[in-house]
């Protein structure tokens, strides 16, 4: 099982090396003042990567322990939460998204619901005040809030 992980990796790297080589080969270069050009380095790197991948396939090392089941689900869920954070960051605004995301992450890390909600809200508000007033960084307000408050 452990050996297999590194072998899967080596196949992935071989695939990447092939992809890089094909992409680099297809570059259209009008002209270049140096004899190396933009293709050479990616091509050399892809060759190097391919050789290293083959060595790794022949002599795989000890792979780590891979997440499965509930843990894997949580990891995927965390990334989904962060993805949603990014997607909503501008439209919903910093405060709302940050509060929501902080609550969910706090809860994922074992806080009780009450702690998670209070902690998340305080974090959102605190960081908002720190960034906006302490450090002068402008953060998205959220596009929904503007018509609500009648400002332009």
């Amino acid at each position: 099982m452990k050996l297999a992980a590194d072998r899967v990796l080596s196949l992935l790297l071989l695939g990447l090396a092939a992809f890089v080589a094909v992409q680099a080969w297809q570059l259209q270069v009008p002209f270049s003042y140096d004899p190396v050009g933009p293709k050479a380095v990616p091509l050399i790197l892809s060759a190097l990567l391919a050789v290293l991948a083959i060595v790794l396939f022949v002599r795989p090392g000890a792979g780590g322990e891979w997440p499965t089941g509930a843990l894997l689900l949580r990891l995927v869920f965390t990334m989904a939460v962060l993805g949603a954070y990014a997607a909503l960051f501008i439209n919903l605004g910093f405060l709302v998204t940050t509060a929501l995301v902080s609550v969910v992450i706090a809860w994922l890390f074992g806080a009780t619901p009450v702690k998670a909600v209070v902690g998340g809200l305080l974090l959102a508000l605190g960081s908002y005040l720190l960034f906006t007033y302490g450090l002068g960084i402008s953060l998205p307000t959220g596009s929904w809030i503007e018509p609500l408050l009648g400002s332009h």
Partner: protein
Amino acid sequence: MFDFLIQGFGVALTPLNLGLAFLGALLGTLFGALPGIGPINGIAILMPLAYTLGLPAESALILLAGIYTGSEYGGRMSSILLNVPGDAGAVMTTLDGHPLAKKGLAGPALGLSAVSSFIGATVAIVGLTLFAPLLAVVAVKFGPAEFFALMIFAFASMSAMMGKDPIKTLIGAVLGVLISTVGVDSGTGVLRFTFDMPELYDGIDFVVMIIGLFAVSEILLMLEHAFRHDQDGEMAPIGRVMVKMSEVMYCKWAILRSSVIGFVIGVLPGTGASVASAVAYTTEKRISDRDNTFGTGDMRGLAAPEAANNASAAGSFVPMLTLGIPGSGTTAILLGALMLYNINPGPMMFREQPVVVGGLIASLYIGNVMLLLLNLPLAGVFARVLQVPRWILVPSVAILAFVGVYQLHSDLMAIYLMLAIGVFGYVLRKFGFSLAPVVLGFVLGGLMEENLRRALSISGGDVAILFQSGLSIGLWIAAALVVLVPMFAGKLKAKFLPAKVS
């Protein structure tokens, strides 16, 4: 001869300027300590403020320089405590700093890094005071061929980092170099690996890269540890807070060597704290890591990059003040700030603007002492960050990552890219990769390719240009020694290498 400095101390010691130096040091430490928010953000944010307040040029420069040097101090905090670099120059600090924190030595690690930062900065500021005009002449002798040789030397020293899994170290470095090829090719303007996404034209931003690679992947790893309740992710209880004199003395050669390396690399236009700390760390590991303790919490492995990144911050003022050429991304902004004041730094500045130059250099001395006094007692306070429960710490890291990237890019694609790089970093770490070779490959690889191709454009394709100057020949020899000497007797190593490198 040092009239400008005496005049400068007169300027810097006025109450207003002392206060501004302190404010700059404090804010800089804070900006640097927050992952993703570095000196560039700090200066960009405060520059208009300084201007709006109507501060005179020397005062504005004192404030902004305080932020710059302060953030090199602050950058190490999250590196040590959270394994997330606070800014570009602090990536190497994670390698030994975080393992020290895991051993319960967060306080001494913070203290030692403050001392190393102080010494590194002091060496560099003295160098700046004494040799600035002279160094400027030498710095411009460093052309593409010499830069290429320097990169060869850096990669050769990286061979010291092979560790227990050399193949994965190599793969990591190759992946790092590959990532550096994304974007507009600097020679021909051809787009490489951009897949028609304009967000990728300028290449992958270093901040997005390290925040993704370190912060996001760290969040996922912490989740795993929390889920499994395993010991690996737990911190040892915080022991003593202060660093011991004996520990500083143990690192003295590491600190001094790295200060010089950092200063020299900082002086070269086009390289900054990230290259300086990388070269200092790998060199130091090559020279003094006899028992293979670097990477597991060796004090010298922490002291070296910290001395170097602070030294390079001060060193990058040399080309800015003497030639009007920025030595790093951050001095480029300082240069812009000066232009708002109708001051064009350049060869005449020492003569025409002695108040500004002297005030700045004097304030660097003062700010540096302030930073040490500020940071030593703070070590104990900041070490307490480790006692913050995970369920508050992790959302905070996420918030900082998002704000840092958003502030620099005002663009969602950069955030998605950061998240994607985070998953990539997590997977690499699960496969047993160290992230350092990836970052080193990314930082050094791009410079190596660019400068090789520049050198060959100059010579019209003649490879001889790479070995023409004394500087490049020296670097090639040093590179060869760094690889070959350890293959022979270990005793030879101790005798010859320090002399060749320093």
